[in-house]
């Protein structure tokens, strides 16, 4: 019965493709269809995660050692659940939003199929399978970016696809190298290279290929130097698309990095090697430049895109500290960033949908018109800054304390710098998010000096507000009581075999 594992992967892909054939014109019917598919995928993901946990299913074998196989291990459970839940919420939101951009069928077809590709990446049981879904994801989400079909959005989508393909190609170089080492076929906790019993000399090149692969897959996660597509693609994609791009699809890069680092190579080989130094250094640069440029940016969605560049690199930073505390922090950051960034993008979308305002400087005094939207925006912002009582604080606490646990000398200095940069980045995050909220709520928009100051209610309708509200509640809930999540994530981290 363990073929069930592949259903949440292929069901959305097929049903998404089917939408082109069905071409549903009635809005109500289409909404039913989309929510049914997304709901069914979530349900099947949960069933697979609980019942078929850790059972391998091989769909086919291409040649010796090239299996097309799936397994829901604990990493996959964590990521696939996030993907399915966020996609359902954002999907509901986009029923209303996509009226704004039109061509609903195409949008939802690709949207649903993207979910399938993402779950495929999570469930993939070897680098080969993962790579196939990784490329599929790039191509499917390409259509989401260029949905509006304006000249700019097509150019942005082209930039996105080129970056993604180049990144994936670098990743592929790494994959080729790892496949050249005997026994490196499936994923195994603690890596497969050490178990192969290879000599030190034959492992000498491994860190170099780890660097190449991580930079390649880091493209999706928005890591310097291949982060350039985020600030171009996010502002031009429709809000739900940029929301999942930023909150969820970047996490596909994180899965790929986890699979390479912990499940193929093994933390022990990387610890103390050049790969750890280089990647930590790149992460520190990314964290800083992301926050700094977000601070200098005026277009709200672009600002959020730069913020993603910075925040997702917290995850890679936490992972490459290579100890359990920091890894727990990193995976918590995956969850909490997904929640917070989706909330922020959906709020930005609601603002655009209702008022067509895209710049931060235009949002002064808007808090009275859209109080609920801006309340959620503020809470998500507080979480990203890392204020206690909100989720982001917990993950940052773990990452920083984990980083400061390193005691060998040159590495501990880098970790220390990293923590300092984390703090500076938090400060900049406050500068680029909290100031927006503060101005929206407390500054009066005096420029017009209307005699009759009538506060119009421009609040978005419930279809848009409820998903935002659910995400916001989750941020507060996990900020106050993250215990169960931390317990689960520590079992995930134990499977890293550090």
């Amino acid at each position, binding site marked *: 019965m363990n073929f069930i594992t592949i259903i949440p992967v292929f069901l959305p892909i097929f049903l998404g493709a089917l939408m082109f054939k069905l071409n549903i014109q009635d809005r109500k019917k289409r909404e039913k269809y989309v929510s049914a598919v997304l709901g069914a995928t979530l349900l099947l993901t949960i069933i697979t995660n609980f019942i078929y946990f850790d059972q391998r299913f091989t769909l086919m074998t291409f040649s010796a050692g090239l299996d097309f196989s799936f397994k829901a291990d604990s990493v996959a459970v964590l990521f696939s659940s996030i993907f399915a839940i966020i996609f359902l919420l954002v999907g509901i939101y986009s029923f209303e939003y996509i009226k704004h951009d039109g061509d609903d069928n195409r949008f939802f077809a690709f949207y649903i199929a993207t979910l399938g590709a993402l779950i495929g990446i999570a469930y993939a049981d070897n680098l080969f399978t993962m790579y196939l879904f990784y490329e599929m994801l790039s191509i499917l989400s390409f259509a989401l970016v260029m949905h509006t079909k304006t000249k700019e959005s097509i150019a942005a989508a082209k930039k996105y696809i080129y970056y993604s393909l180049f990144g994936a190609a670098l990743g592929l170089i790494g994959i080729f190298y790892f496949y050249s080492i005997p026994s490196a076929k499936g994923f195994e906790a603690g890596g497969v290279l050490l178990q192969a019993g290879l000599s030190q000399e034959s492992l000498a090149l491994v860190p170099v290929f780890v660097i190449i692969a991580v930079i390649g897959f880091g493209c999706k996660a928005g890591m310097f130097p291949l982060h350039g597509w985020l600030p171009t693609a996010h502002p031009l994609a429709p809000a739900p698309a940029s929301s999942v791009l930023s909150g969820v699809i970047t996490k596909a890069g994180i899965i790929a990095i986890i699979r390479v680092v912990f499940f193929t190579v093994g933390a022990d080989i990387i610890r103390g090697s050049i790969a750890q130094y280089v990647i930590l250094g790149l992460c520190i640069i990314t964290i800083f430049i992301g926050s700094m440029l977000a601070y200098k940016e005026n277009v709200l969605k672009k600002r959020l895109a730069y913020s993603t560049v910075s925040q997702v690199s917290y995850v890679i930073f936490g992972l490459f500290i290579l100890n359990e505390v920091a890894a727990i922090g990193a995976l918590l950051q995956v969850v909490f960033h997904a929640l917070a960034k989706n909330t922020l993008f959906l709020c930005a979308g609601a603002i655009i949908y209702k008022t067509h305002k895209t710049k931060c400087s235009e949002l002064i005094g808007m808090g009275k018109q859209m109080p609920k939207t801006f309340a959620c925006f503020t809470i998500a912002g507080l979480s990203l800054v890392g204020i206690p009582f909100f989720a982001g*604080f917990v993950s940052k606490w773990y990452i920083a*304390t984990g980083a400061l646990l390193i005691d060998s000398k040159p590495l501990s200095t880098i970790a220390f710098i990293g923590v300092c940069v984390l703090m500076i980045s938090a400060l900049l995050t406050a500068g680029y998010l909290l100031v927006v909220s503060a101005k929206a709520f407390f500054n009066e928009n005096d420029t017009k000096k209307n005699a009759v100051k009538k506060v119009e209610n421009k609040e978005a309708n419930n279809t848009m507000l409820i998903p935002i509200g659910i995400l916001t509640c989750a941020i507060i809930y996990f900020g106050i009581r993250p215990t169960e999540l931390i317990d689960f994530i520590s079992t995930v981290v134990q499977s890293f075999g550090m």
Partner: protein
Amino acid sequence: MGINILILAMVFVPILLGLMPLFVKNDKTVNLTLVIVSIIELICSLYLLFNIDLYNGTIISLNWFAGLGINFEVNGLGILQAVATSLIWIGASVFSKEYFSNKSKNILRYYGFFSVVFGATMGIFLASDLFTLFIFFEIMSLLSYPLVVHNQDQDAIDAGNSYLAFSVIGGLVMLMGIFILYSLTGTLVISQLATACSNLQASPMLVASGFMIFVGFAIKSGLFPFNGWLPKSYPASPAPFSACLSSVLSKTGVYGVIIVTFRILQGNVAWASFVLAIGVITMFFGAFFAFLSKDLKETLAYSSMSQIGFITVGVAMTQLLGEHGTIAAYGTVLHMFNHTCIKLILFTLAGVVYQNIHSLNLNDISGFGRKNPLIKVYYSIAALSIMGIPLFSGFISKTLLHEAIVEKIWMFDTFSLGAGLMQLSEMMFLLSGGFTVAYMLKLFIVLFINKPSTKVLKVKNVLFTKQTKIILGCVSFILLAMGLMPYTIMDNIAGITASFMGVHPLDSQVNYFAFVNIKGALISVTIGLILYFIVAKNSFITKEKGYVNPWNGKVSVENLIYKPIIFTVLPNVFGFISRIFDIFADLFIYIFNFIFCRDTKIPPSFFEGKKYSPKEDASNKKISITKSLEYSLLLYGLGFVIIMLYLLFAV
């Protein structure tokens, strides 16, 4: 079990009460609930204060909270501050109802945040470890922002921006310090920090972490040079909240400074001297600017800063005196408590003035209290107390602090640099006392002696409700009782905190009313009178021009250094560097494009039979050559030749 629920309720009931305005839209009900909750909190904290021996050291944990769990513990100083906090919140809540009666814009929002800040402050004083303390400290700092900007006019927004910037920076610097401390010692429990840090005293990282945590707290208490937000935010916030800011929120900072000095950097003489220096500077400049100010609330704000300086001097002296630090510790604690009560009265009176006249400029409000004896009585009690006049409570605490400095001077046998600096500190102490006398006298003369201004004459019925009168009466009574019975009340209050302050309880009574001690007060009063009647009267307080502020914020550290650096220089420099990194990959793509995929600018012309060979344009020959395949091949060949030559000769 009972104590667990009691302490958790003390912290979380006000926080949850903050949600009440979302459901109850009647501000009177919310206010009443807030007052009742504050009274219950006062009763609870008094109960804990009197049974401190029973509950000292009991740890109450919520180990699921925020990942690491939060823990509460009752300690002497904390619980005394909790009593003060609930007292202030009763006063401020009662006064809020009156203050907002005629302009109830956003009043529900105000009550919501006001209540949460109350709970968070209780959380700070009851926290058992720095993690818990930090959580509540951040909540308190950030949620105070809506209260500071409550008026939403330009002043409030400016003050709020300043407040927010300082709070966020302070919070993050402090968090960094806590991270380092945690990685060094592995514990954050306040009662274990002293032992955990004692064998690390030589470590520069420990000092760095102590300093970082100190910065976070120093910002909240307005110590120099982190005071930029204070003289703006106190006057800009609504009066009830100004009272809370000055009476309670600044004390959370002092509480933290005490923890850093007594627990993390215990016995570090250099550190204690540094804190002393900061205290002395803050004490002096606060008093100095209060003396110059021509705005009622600004005077009180600078006065707060100055008094916090006095307290910080006490904190440093306790450390410097070591074994004999009891009097300094007592002085610190008592001055904290005194200042809390005094500033509640003074800021509430400032609020009363503002709600009647809608101005705080000393020229507008002159003579306000002439026909109102009750205001005069309340003001006088508070003012005499803060001046340190014998028989008032401030005298006791200032005497103790002064005694501590004098004792330290005696401990130096011969004349040395240390002794000289200590002498200087004493002189500054007395001088600041003199300025205190001068600025309180200035306010007294403005309010009660000067001729009423036109604005004051317009006010027929002075708005000053019975409830507020009763509250101020109670607080004045506390001050009077403490001042008149120092041995029964003040010594006992301070005794409760002795163990937390790390000193032995006082073994023999200090003779407060000995001539030596009264002499100190007399010197300050004399200096004050000279300053007011000779210096001020002849320079910036004149009959013709009224009150002028000769300084008037011309030079401020914030505008000169902090703002340009933080908001202009650093973002632009680092923004530029980041931009280079940002376009790094794009730059490569651009260069590749430039070399390999140059778009042709020559318009292809499709003449018959010449579809695949564009027409040559004679005028554009140069460009067309550089874009031709042959030219590319030529360049390729050139490069090839260079590489060949290199291989031939260099390798």
